């Protein structure tokens, strides 16, 4: 985006951030953004799921830093709203035990324009991966409590793409 004007806070899209152990409902979250604004032309969602890792994995355990997790994702989401012309931005991150196929994270970005919705959703996910205080531990089907998942360099590179 080459938008040089900085929107005033009142113009910024509403940001909704939730950290919860409960599952979320993608359709309900999309619906909430749509209802709020009849001029939305594009809605992009990202859902991050727990993979079964070739059948090895029994569950992931997601630890988080209460308070900071919500604050940090809100900071990232607000930055996205300053950078793209959005009509709404929602981020939900689960914690606790999540089994293969289960939902981990949801981002919903709504905008008049599809490029803005795509870019904002991808930006939010990239930064969330490297800055939101969550950690994943693997529990394996053979009964062993596996390792803490290692951070990936590719995630850091993905986030670095957005530095102007």
């Amino acid at each position, binding site marked *: 985006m080459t938008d040089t004007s900085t929107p005033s806070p009142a113009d910024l899209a509403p940001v909704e951030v939730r950290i919860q152990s409960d599952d979320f409902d993608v359709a309900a979250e999309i619906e909430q953004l749509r209802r709020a604004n009849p001029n939305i032309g594009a809605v992009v969602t990202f859902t*991050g799921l727990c993979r079964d890792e070739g059948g090895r994995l029994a569950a992931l355990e*997601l*630890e*988080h*830093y209460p*308070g*900071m*997790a919500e*604050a*940090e994702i809100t900071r990232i989401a607000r930055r996205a709203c300053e950078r793209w012309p959005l009509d709404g931005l929602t981020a939900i*991150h689960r914690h606790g035990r999540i089994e293969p196929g289960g939902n*981990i*994270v949801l981002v919903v970005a709504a905008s008049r324009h599809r490029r803005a919705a795509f870019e904002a959703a991808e930006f939010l*996910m990239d930064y*969330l*991966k*490297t*800055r*939101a*205080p*969550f*950690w*994943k*531990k693997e529990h394996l089907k053979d009964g062993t409590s596996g390792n*803490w*998942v*290692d*951070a990936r360099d590719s*995630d850091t590179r993905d986030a670095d793409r957005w530095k102007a």
Partner: protein
Amino acid sequence: MQLRYFAWVRERIGQDSETVDLPGSITTVADLLDWLAARDEGYASAFADREIIRVALDQEHAEHDAPLAGVREAAFFPPMTGG
């Protein structure tokens, strides 16, 4: 100052939080890490690879050279793997 530990940092130290009175000589995050690592084997092991340790001061990311003046809560943890 309230200290909080997460993931394998928490596991190696053996507790998720504690309150400490810092000597006046401890003015930066790096000072605090040195001071903690000298405590016992658990802390030493948690902070052995100092480079990799991430820090938050009052729930905002901070660098190792950040000053501690006025900070109420410091947290130490491995690189994040959410999302």
